[in-house]
């Protein structure tokens, strides 16, 4: 700067065209810059379309004034700086004042597209109109005054796009487009600054700006700045009309971010539109209203009451426990253990007599105890409850009191377990029962055939004595023939045939006439007339449970060896099998008998082998002797009496049970006797008979983890076990035959109470929502109930219930 000469006052002329040759934009620029450096402060440029005339002149102490005539190129005064004043005598081309940084540019004509494009400071005065996209991207740097763009007439399309600051003024005097002085769609993307305009417009980017009236402050500014503008463009005479009326002017200002956000909000809310649509166009409740009844309000995911998807139901005793289900007599052991746990042992021992007259004999002694085989505890935890011992404990219990006499009469033919069971049940119900027994004592095969080792006679006698206390008319040595049967049938409303199976089945082979039947052999032994078998080798054909009883008895008679042969895998199991095996019975199979040589005492098999058999006993079953029945009662080809599932024969007043109908266990005969008695009782009394036994409980409902334990606790004992009863992990000392009251109590605690509420309260405590409570009843009973308005249907009650009582049901 110091090298610069003192400013000269005279105007420096710069020619854009020298002797007919156009100066390049570069050369013209260099001459202008040099002239200014050389001190020129007044320049006149005669342009010939050069680019960027008058721009980029650094600020001096005094202004640099440039006048331009001739055709002006693009970007006149671009990057102009403070102190530069440009006056164009005519029109200018595109981008006049591009990135203006402070120059004052006056165009005494029109400007084409992009005027004052990106201007940041300075002033653009235009005497005419502007082209498209003028005032785009103008800025306002807070360090400086904002740029001003003044247009006397109108502006072209896309005006003030992305305008970020600065002031635009469009005076609208004799506009080229009299309908729209701001052109098509101005102000797209405009975020700052203001546009004052005077005259009609046809819309603007409403997303970005809004139209407003001028404030007094606006008007003051406009009037004050209008004067120099009009003076500069030589239109001072218009000051009066333009400044006359504020209401001729309007302004466009950018929306604030908050205003923009507010605009994005829908004018009509969707829910509002929807409800309006529902009510007015398609009808109240919407398009599906005619088909949907009931509440349609919104439900939360977690619901109570009727809105729950699932609800718990306390299904106490809905299912049978496996013990009761598998017992042919359906003795509900879970009820006995509940009584015992409640300290009512005696009632528990009495209770079983409602089901069987022979609990000590059968449950306690000879039954394979299907109840224990199926006991959930035995299945899934450790060992079953000692239900057999529990049966034995009822030995000394007195007979229940029979009900009041009904006057109905029933005859029972046969005093074996089936007949005893039926007679017992019917007599307790108050019916008059006549029992006919061919032998001189009751008991049937229990008395005649079961080895005394397995069933001590004292036990049977005691239970038969108790049987005698309930008023059954027992007719001993009363063999029934067809005539007698007719007589009995005539005297009674119902006859139950329980004659058992006493005719040994025969198998034919050479020498079979030299064999003895198991029935005759066992009966002889029990009657004290057993053969002397000291040192003898005994063979038994048939290795079922009867064969095992025979084997045990043969050893008892002194046999040196006993061999049971069978054509297939021996069917024997349980106590009979254990007893025979303990004594040394050998099993041989598969063996098909060819002949028995009575002379050499040799049994020959079809495979060519043979064995010594001093005595050969056939144990292949018995069939009933039912010659006494009339022809109207059907039998099958083997002689079994045909019955339906209720025990009724083809004569509707005659029922048949036990071995007379099919071979079975003693417990089956007792169960059938009880079932038939129930049906007969209901028929005589004209009651509706409900099926007694319910479906067995699915085992997965029982929560065995409550009972499962490591085999030892801290004291080296099984959990729930005491030092005194530790024999057999988890079981209660039954092995030595003793079964104390303490053992009974422990066993009752071990019962899983399958399907039957044990009143433990786990559910009540588990419920997070406090929806479950226990209701005690006057009779000492109880139930658990659910408060529907608290319950969410989560299933924690069902999940925690040890007994499988709570069930989650779909709440349809």
């Amino acid at each position, binding site marked *: 700067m110091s090298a610069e000469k003192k400013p000269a006052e005279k105007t420096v002329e710069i020619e854009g065209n020298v002797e007919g040759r156009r100066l390049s934009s570069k050369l013209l620029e260099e001459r202008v810059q040099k002239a200014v450096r050389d001190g020129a402060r007044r320049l006149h440029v005669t342009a010939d379309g050069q680019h960027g005339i008058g721009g980029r002149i650094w600020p001096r102490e005094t202004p640099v004034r440039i006048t331009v005539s001739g055709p002006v190129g693009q970007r006149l005064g671009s990057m102009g700086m403070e102190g530069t004043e440009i006056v164009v005598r005519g029109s200018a081309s595109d981008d006049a004042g591009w990135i203006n940084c402070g120059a004052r540019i006056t165009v005494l004509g029109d400007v084409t597209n992009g005027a004052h494009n990106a201007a940041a400071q300075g002033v653009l005065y235009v005497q005419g109109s502007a082209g498209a996209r003028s005032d785009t991207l103008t800025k306002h740097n807070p360090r400086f005054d904002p740029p001003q763009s003044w247009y006397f007439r109108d502006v072209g399309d896309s005006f003030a*796009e992305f305008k970020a600051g600065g002031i635009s003024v469009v005076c609208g005097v004799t506009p080229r487009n009299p309908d729209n002085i701001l052109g098509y*769609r101005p102000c797209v*993307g405009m975020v700052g600054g203001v546009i004052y305009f005077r005259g009609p417009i046809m819309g603007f980017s409403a997303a970005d700006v809004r139209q407003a009236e001028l404030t007094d402050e606006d008007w003051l500014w406009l009037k004050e700045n209008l004067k120099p503008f009009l003076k500069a463009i030589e239109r001072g005479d218009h000051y009066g009309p333009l400044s006359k009326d504020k209401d001729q002017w309007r302004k466009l200002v950018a929306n604030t971010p908050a205003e923009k956000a507010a605009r994005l909000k*829908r*004018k*009509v*809310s*969707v*829910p509002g*539109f*929807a409800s309006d*649509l529902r009510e007015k*166009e*398609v*009808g109240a409740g*919407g*398009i*599906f209203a*005619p*088909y*949907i009844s*009931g*509440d*349609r309000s*919104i*439900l939360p*995911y*977690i*619901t109570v009451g009727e*809105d*729950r*998807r*699932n609800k718990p139901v306390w299904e106490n005793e809905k299912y049978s426990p496996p013990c009761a289900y*598998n017992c042919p007599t359906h003795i509900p052991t879970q009820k006995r253990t509940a009584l015992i746990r409640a300290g009512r042992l005696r009632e528990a021992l009495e209770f079983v007599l409602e089901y069987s007259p022979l609990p000590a004999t059968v449950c306690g002694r000879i039954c*394979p105890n*299907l109840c224990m*085989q199926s006991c959930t505890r035995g*299945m*899934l935890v450790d060992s079953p409850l000692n239900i057999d011992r529990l049966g034995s404990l009822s030995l000394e219990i007195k007979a229940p009191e029979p009900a009041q006499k009904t006057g109905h009469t029933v005859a029972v033919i046969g005093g074996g377990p089936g007949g005893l069971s039926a007679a017992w049940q019917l007599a307790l119900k108050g019916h008059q029962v006549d029992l006919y027994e061919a032998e001189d004592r009751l008991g049937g095969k229990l008395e005649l055939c079961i080895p005394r080792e397995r069933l001590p006679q004292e036990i049977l006698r005691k239970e038969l004595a108790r049987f005698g206390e309930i008023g059954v008319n027992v007719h001993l040595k009363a063999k029934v023939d067809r005539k007698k049967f007719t007589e009995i049938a005539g005297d009674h409303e119902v006859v139950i045939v329980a004659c058992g199976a006493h005719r040994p089945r025969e198998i034919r082979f050479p020498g079979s006439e030299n064999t003895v039947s198991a029935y005759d052999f066992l009966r002889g032994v029990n009657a004290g007339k057993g053969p002397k078998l000291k040192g003898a080798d005994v063979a038994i054909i048939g290795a079922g449970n009867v064969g095992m009883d025979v084997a045990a008895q043969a050893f008892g008679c002194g046999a040196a060896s006993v061999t049971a042969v069978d054509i297939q895998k021996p069917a024997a*199991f*349980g106590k009979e099998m254990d007893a025979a095996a303990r004594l040394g019975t050998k099993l041989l199979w598969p063996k098909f008998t060819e002949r028995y040589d009575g002379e050499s005492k040799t049994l020959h098999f079809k495979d060519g082998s043979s064995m010594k058999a001093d005595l050969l006993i056939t144990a292949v079953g018995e069939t009933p002797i039912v010659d006494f029945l009339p022809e109207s009662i059907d039998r099958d080809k083997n002689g079994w009496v045909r019955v339906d599932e209720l025990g009724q024969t083809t004569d509707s007043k005659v029922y048949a049970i036990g071995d007379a109908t099919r071979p079975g*266990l003693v417990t089956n005969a007792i169960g059938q006797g009880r079932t038939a008695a129930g049906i007969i009782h209901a028929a005589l009394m004209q009651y509706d008979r409900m099926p007694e036994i319910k479906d067995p409980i699915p*085992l997965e409902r029982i*929560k065995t*983890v*409550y009972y499962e*334990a*490591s085999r030892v*606790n*801290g004291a080296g004992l099984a959990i729930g076990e005491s030092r005194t009863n530790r024999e057999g992990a988890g079981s209660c000392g039954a092995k030595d035959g003793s079964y104390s009251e303490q053992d009974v109590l422990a066993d009752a605690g071990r019962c899983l109470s399958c399907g039957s509420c044990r009143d433990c309260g786990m559910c009540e405590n*588990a419920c*997070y929502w406090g929806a479950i409570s226990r209701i005690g009843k006057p009779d000492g009973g109880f139930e658990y109930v659910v408060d529907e308005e608290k319950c*969410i249907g*989560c*299933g*924690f009650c*069902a*999940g*925690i219930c040890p007994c499988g009582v709570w069930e989650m049901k779909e*709440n349809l």
Partner: protein
Amino acid sequence: MEPVKRPDKNHQLTLKEFPYIIRWRDDRCTRCGRCTAVCPVKAVVPGVRVERVVSSEGTTPTPKVTRRVTSVVRQVNDINRYCTGCAMCQLVCPNEAIEPEWNPAHKFLHFKNAGGDAYKRGGRRNDPGLSTLDMLKFTRISMLTDPALDAGRHEFHLRTYLGRILPPKDLPLVAEGGMLAVDKNADIFVPPVRQIYPIMIGSMSVGALSPAMWEGLAMGVAYLNEEMGLPVVMATGEGGMPPRLLKSRFLKYFILQIASGYFGWDEIIRALPQMMEDPAAIEIKYGQGAKPGDGGLLMSYKVLKLIASIRGVPMFVDLSSPPTHQTKYSIEEAVAKMIISMSMAWGFRVPVYPKISGTKTAKAVLNNLARNPYAAGLSIDGEDGGTGAAYNVSMDKMGHPIAMNIRECYLDLVSQGKQNELPLIAAGGVGKKGNLAANAAALIMLGASVVSVGKYLMQATAGCLGDEMNRCNLCNTGRCPRGITTQDPKLYRRLDSSKVAERLVDVFKAADTELKKIFAPMGRSTELPIGMSDGLAAGDKAIADALGISYVC
């Protein structure tokens, strides 16, 4: 008598066979039961567990055993109650104590056939990979070579035409008052054409969807048309439409579908005299992308009073539509007979087009339609389309990807010079990965005039939990935990139809912006770039070659 048998648990499945494994945190759980109450399939249940601790408290070894039984939440290992991974448990848990975790080593399909029942489900093809559509990029970006447009600044007119467009030479045009007009006296059939938004809502039936969901979409469509100025149309799916809607002014926003079961059509025909408006179009369904060769199926437990009334059937019966239309024996006859019947019902004022599943044979159908003056277009539904109920094998293994199918059909039209005459509607997997606008734009540039979307909208508007990891996909069971595909009021009352409508508006507004963002840099603002395949490219050479587009890398 045989001894009683011990239960056999040797054949139970381990949880490792299951597709989702529940991660339950004992330390966080309060046992409130919200998770087990909400689980749609009861895959999580309360239970009990025994704990045993051996400890010693003194300074000499003094063994002490403590045992306690605690309540827990556990996953069941019953294949019919498998955890679907829906995560409703996680949603309702106040303590972040439970969530399902995907098990990539599962053997679900090995076992999900108990009782000989082949696995049926809802949802779409279980392929979590990228579809062809998601592998396409828009590579022709105008900057200096063409005038670049600005998506935010320019005014756009993204519309398309549904209906057959006659070439100008075939139009009976006359000059009337200085303007061109159609000569009404000319004996030439000028097919009906609708100007619609290029993304339409694909066929989802009343029945497949709950009333809350269906009404939500219907309300949203009305709003889009009347408040947003977006002429979005919605196809009804098979199974009719409620008469209240048939008789309303909104009918014009709906495409009525007729399928092989003809359910609901007696009610539609009876409503004809009372219709204030014509429907947008009639869609004849011949196939569905999700289950090619299978007809519709609505299980009896979804056929309650609402569905029975609208479909004109008794309650509680399985409603299955035959795989093909009955009494139609050849392509020519089948298509022509249906199209002319449906055209007649509305006096030839309504565009009628068939919808087929994506197939190798699509071109044969297309060529037949090209010769049929009443055919208004062809809709092709690709393998990634969704469904409310289908056999898993049909969904996973049957069908044709839409990208190549639409491309082949479009190029076939081009070879006949008819690409501007018969619009193609593309569907099946649009928005599978969330890229609704990009997928739609890609299909348009491959040659589709309209893009139809269904599954994405269920996810985006109602929070459908389903995905391609076989999550949830319980649509066929009527147990939709969101209330979208169920007829059980306890479930569909979870869904607020006006929120669905609002989300539909959001989705279309955003997609509209995205479409502009895609089309503007390609210099398109007023005409859709239908078939503008030079703007598309694939990073996979084989795909690029198959589609006839550029390969870029």
